[in-house]
């Protein structure tokens, strides 16, 4: 098995890891770097619970080779949760009780962050389209949509969601 040296920035800290060529980013994060916030579940890019951001793009780290992240910036929930921006996410998810077992939560939060950063969190439709790759088996999604509605950035303006749901919350 050939090993590769990979240079990464993980949550803003430069890291160098020597990994087998076939090692998956999820295993590098969880087993080598002790960052267990990203979870393993389906192994086939369906459930989204292993989602992390690589250069601001959400990826399923269960099917992403660590060597392909060479030179990239990786953001996991451990890093995101320490940024000032996270406070809004924290508040809206706690207020709506938009989590139950919590296994999918880090992937959902990072996906929402990437959508918002890309200007693609402008409506309820955006939320539903954007979270199509994240399964939550516990909540039935309604609470997650309600929490995400408070994070909507209205296009053309700098005003962010104020915690007031855009819909009447009836769905």
């Amino acid at each position, binding site marked *: 098995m050939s090993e590769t040296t990979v240079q990464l920035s993980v949550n803003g800290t430069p890291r160098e890891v020597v990994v087998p060529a076939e090692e998956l980013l999820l295993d590098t994060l969880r087993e080598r770097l002790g960052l267990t916030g990203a979870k393993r579940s389906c192994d086939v890019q369906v459930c989204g619970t292993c989602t992390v951001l690589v250069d601001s793009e959400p990826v399923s780290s269960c099917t992403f080779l660590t060597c392909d992240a060479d030179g990239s910036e990786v953001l996991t929930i451990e890093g995101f949760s320490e940024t000032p921006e996270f406070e809004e996410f924290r508040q809206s998810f706690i207020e709506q009780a938009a989590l139950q077992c919590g296994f999918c939560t880090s992937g959902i939060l990072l996906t929402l962050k990437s959508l918002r950063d890309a200007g693609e969190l402008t409506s309820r439709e955006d*939320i539903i389209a954007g979270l199509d790759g994240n399964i939550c088996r516990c909540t039935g*999604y309604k609470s997650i949509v309600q929490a995400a509605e408070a994070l909507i950035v209205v296009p053309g303006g700098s005003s962010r969601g104020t915690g007031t749901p855009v819909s009447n919350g009836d769905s």
Partner: protein
Amino acid sequence: MNPVTEVPTDQSTDRVGRSEDRKDAGEKITGKARFAGDINLPRMLHGKVLRSELPHARITSIDTSAAERMPGVVTVLVGSELEHFDPYWGHAIKDRPILAIDRVRFQGEPVAAVAAEDEATAEAALREIAVEYEELPTVGTLTEATADGALEIHQDQPRPGLFHGLGKLPERDGNVCYRYQLDAGSVEVAEAEAEDELIVEGEYEFPAVYQYAMETHTVVADFSGDEITMWASCQHPFLVRAEIADLFNLPLGKVRIIVPYLGGGFGSKSYTKMEPITAALSWKAGRPVRIQNRVDESMVTTRRHGMRCRMRTTASRDGKLRSRSVRLWLDTGAYADNGPRVCATAGDAAPGPYAWDAVHVDASCVYCNTAPAGSYRAFGTVHMQWIGESQVDELARRLDIDPLEMRRRNLLKPGQPVRPDGSGKPLDADLIGDVEKAAAAIDWGSPAEKWTGRGVAVGLLAAGAQPVSRANVRMEADGSAEVNVGTTEMGQGARTVMAQIAAQELAIDIDRLTVQGADTRFTPFDRSTGASRSTTLAGLAVQRAAADLREKLLRMATVAWGIDRDELSLSDGIVTGAGEQATYAELIAGHFGLVGGDVVGEGEVAPEKGEGSYAAGPVFWEICIAAAEVSVDPETGRVNLNRIATIADVGKAINPLLVERQDEGAVMQGLGNALFEEMVYDDGILVNDNLLDYRIPRIEDMPESMTGIIVENGDGPGPYGAKGCGEGAQAATPAAIVTALADAGVQMKQLPLTPERVWRQIQKQKEAE
């Protein structure tokens, strides 16, 4: 038993009945919450399981030598190494070896296990194990398993497991490992008297379904000397402890189960699952071992029972339901798992919540060469409610009676016996009031477009399991306290609710309370987390423990101040009386004369008489009520759930938001079960063993409107009149979808309601017209 005396607080400071923030939210949102797979012990090995590729075969040889020689492999374990002790387990029927011995009975059965320094090496070593099989015919379906002269999957008589809880186990009859029968009145007479038009009968099928807890079954086992410690993704740590102690011949106190957060359970982590094999591997390796299933492995670790059912219901011309006759068969797979209980619960649910002149139920739990089937949210009722309710609706249609009116005329009323033979707990809820609320929420009776229909569904679920729960609450010298209760937090919000109950009794803020998962070495016994029992039973134990603690603290004040208990008042953790005032911390310091010490309150719930109230159970009847509106596209057969209303008849909502959130999740799982989820077997081979081919509801599947209605009649046996919830909506959702679809013009007798199936039924009905 500790008396719960009047709590000296005013309503404005109630900690129950308020939607407090989840206590686990902070940890879970930041990724800090620890699950079993996040635990990494020094010298820990990674375990992998070699599973049978054949559904039924004799094992003629296993050669592990090549695997054992691989660098990084520490040990390989096979079933024959375990034969010097009794390696069979199973809480209902002890029918299952830790690793296959002599034969395999389902595709996916563990045959060997490898422990290696890393997961990749363990995985690679599996490919180096050579197993030779002699294939046996596959008994892959209920039809095959119950045919005359069917090959018997098990040869021995069933041995009762430690927790079968079903009285005397019947002898195995071919592949039938358990049978539940119920008779009241004479269905023959009722059917002979009924007009032909008012006899509805049919054959129905319910598929095998995968619970999909997103965290797959995961166990870390550390067998060290004569004791074992395990971190396990389990819902019932105390029952797992007992089975492990029994298997390895250890005293209970030498088996320690620690339960971190669970990434979902839904029944899939009830009773024992991957714990025996992980423990055995650690025993042989002499080092800690972690086994984490892949999804395809969890799918064959446990699942929901597939079912075939024949049902016949009769009514009289005046719209009175008269008789019901039910014959059903459940595919419990190669090992019983919780099949006998599922069978009994399905039998219990089969009559539905109606007053009958006559009922006949005959339910069989059948071994097949498929993955073992056990618990999944609302088992038994989810299997039966959609069938019974569609027959009630069909009778209503033939009688030209509105389905809601049909239920007003026939539903049981509070205090009436639920079981047709009069045994067990009578009805403890207002079903008519409940179903009317649900129907109103979807505008029942307003005009509907063509191919759109509305339906209601009412069912009952025997809830609570055995009423055995203990808890204690320990207050530290600073006035903060720990609630020690064995309830597993798997997402339902148990830690929050337990904290609210203790906070209410102690009149302190919930932030002052810590609630952790079970560590069986220190946590008092709790029977299990399932059957919607935790708030009701463990919650009652917590309430009693917190009240006991409060009274101990108040006694310190009476001693210190020389006054009587009834001269004291309590508000926000401050005790006042006879001109004196003290915090709990001050009382504790005064008592011990030191800045240390603690005070512990104890609480328990135990059966109230003789055989226990479980014999006359259930603890309560969980209410399964929904009203749904669906549309169907006649060109494609695609069914859309437009809106749904569910009832959470909870007696008292300790945390109303969490009650609503439970039902939203249950609706979505019910929608998946009804519309598309199905484990597809072909001659004993699971065809769709991954989440690409087995579809779980996604965010886009959300109905346009989902309304959760909370009903609080204070009629539950739990704290403050509470009773459990969270399963009812899962049983009621498929039933309401099926009755609504029938109202839209398509009568289905097989789930899931895939577009193809629905389209074919539409064509069949067109041809018949």
